[in-house]
């Protein structure tokens, strides 16, 4: 059995990789539109992060078993989107049922938004990338957890810039979505520099 410290180190190293090196928003643009939507309100940043992190972590753990059995088959890759949607779907329905049963008020409050936190590129993208970067179940869990935290980091950086980017100082045609995209581009460039990106000339 693996030493607990080794397991912890694996989870942390893959989580760090998915937060900084492979950030869902800044490096892959997974769920960029959801992050822009979420960043408008503080409570959405926390709520969506919780939903996405819970889903990416749990779905990553479940997807490990399918990646090891179905993916190596000759035509296994054709069925991976269906399998991942199946995993996300089961967790989504189970989560909705538990909320409806035990936290009815919360269920009523979030039922209009919950599908946005679950069916987006950040969640399913984490599962696809896990098959490339994860080696064992702990690294899968670490990568899935890190994707959720990376989403939080991106949404938080957008949230704190939101008021300034929506101000009168920004030309009218750039206000809102266009300036947000340019801002994400600039932060993405900073992340690229942080991890040592160099353009090939």
């Amino acid at each position, binding site marked *: 059995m693996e030493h607990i410290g080794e397991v912890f180190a694996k989870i942390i190293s893959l989580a760090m990789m998915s937060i900084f090196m492979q950030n869902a928003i*800044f*490096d*892959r*643009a*997974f*769920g*960029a*539109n959801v992050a*822009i939507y979420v960043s408008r309100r503080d409570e959405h940043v926390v709520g969506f992060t919780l939903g996405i992190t819970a889903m990416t972590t749990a779905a990553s753990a479940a997807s490990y078993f399918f990646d090891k059995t179905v993916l190596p088959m000759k035509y296994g*890759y*054709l*069925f*991976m*989107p*269906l399998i*991942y*949607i*199946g995993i*996300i*779907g089961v967790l*989504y*329905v189970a989560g*909705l049922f538990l909320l409806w049963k035990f936290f009815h008020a919360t269920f009523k409050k979030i*039922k209009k938004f*919950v*599908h946005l936190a679950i*069916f*987006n*590129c950040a*969640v*399913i*993208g984490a599962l*696809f*990338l896990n098959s490339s970067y994860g080696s064992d179940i702990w690294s899968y869990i670490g990568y899935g957890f890190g994707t959720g935290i990376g989403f939080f980091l991106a949404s938080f950086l957008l949230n704190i810039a939101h008021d300034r980017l929506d101000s009168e100082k920004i*030309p009218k*045609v*750039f206000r809102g*979505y*266009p*300036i*947000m*995209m*340019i801002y*994400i*581009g*600039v932060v*993405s*460039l900073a992340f*690229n520099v942080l991890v040592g*990106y160099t*353009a*090939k*000339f």
Partner: protein
Amino acid sequence: MKNSRFSANPDGLFKQNIVFMSGLVTAPIIVAATSAENALILVLSFFMMSYISILICRFFPRRIAYSIRILLYAIVAALMFIPTIMVTDKLFPAHEADVTLYIELLTVNSLLLAKTETRFYLKPYGEMAVDALIYVGGYAIAAFLVGFVREVLAFGTLFGLRLFDPVMPSAQSPFFGFILVGIFAALCRAVVKRNAASKTARFVDHSEDIQ
């Protein structure tokens, strides 16, 4: 006899362009549309996975709860991935792995999961089919614009034909994709706003002529 005539609404091309105006399904364009060929692969995949899924999912009864319908839509798109990837592999055997990843992500695209409920499924079937096709056309415009610019800047080529030496290799990176989409989004808004203003001015002139 039922009146089957309807007027096609071209909003999906520019005024409500799904990428530049609504900010949806942006990830494949930002990261994978680095060349005209990649853009073509994305548009073909988007057509097969979104448009055909929209036409199929229309038959799901509305009495199924919204939360469950969304899941069924994603399952249909995941099933559509199988013929889509077979077609793209056949037509473009040398396409990059990154493009495949973004085709896989189209299973949860917002045209299928969000626009169906707020727009397409509120219309009769024929009108919906045309409207959704116009939206796919809007997506194609966005993908090709971004793909052309990035291929010319990053590789100095267009559809693989050499034009000049690469001037900006970093144009193929995601950060450039974000910035370029942001600039195109602002341009699109400016054009739409200008058209709306000139239409209003023409309407006022016409009203004054009548008076």
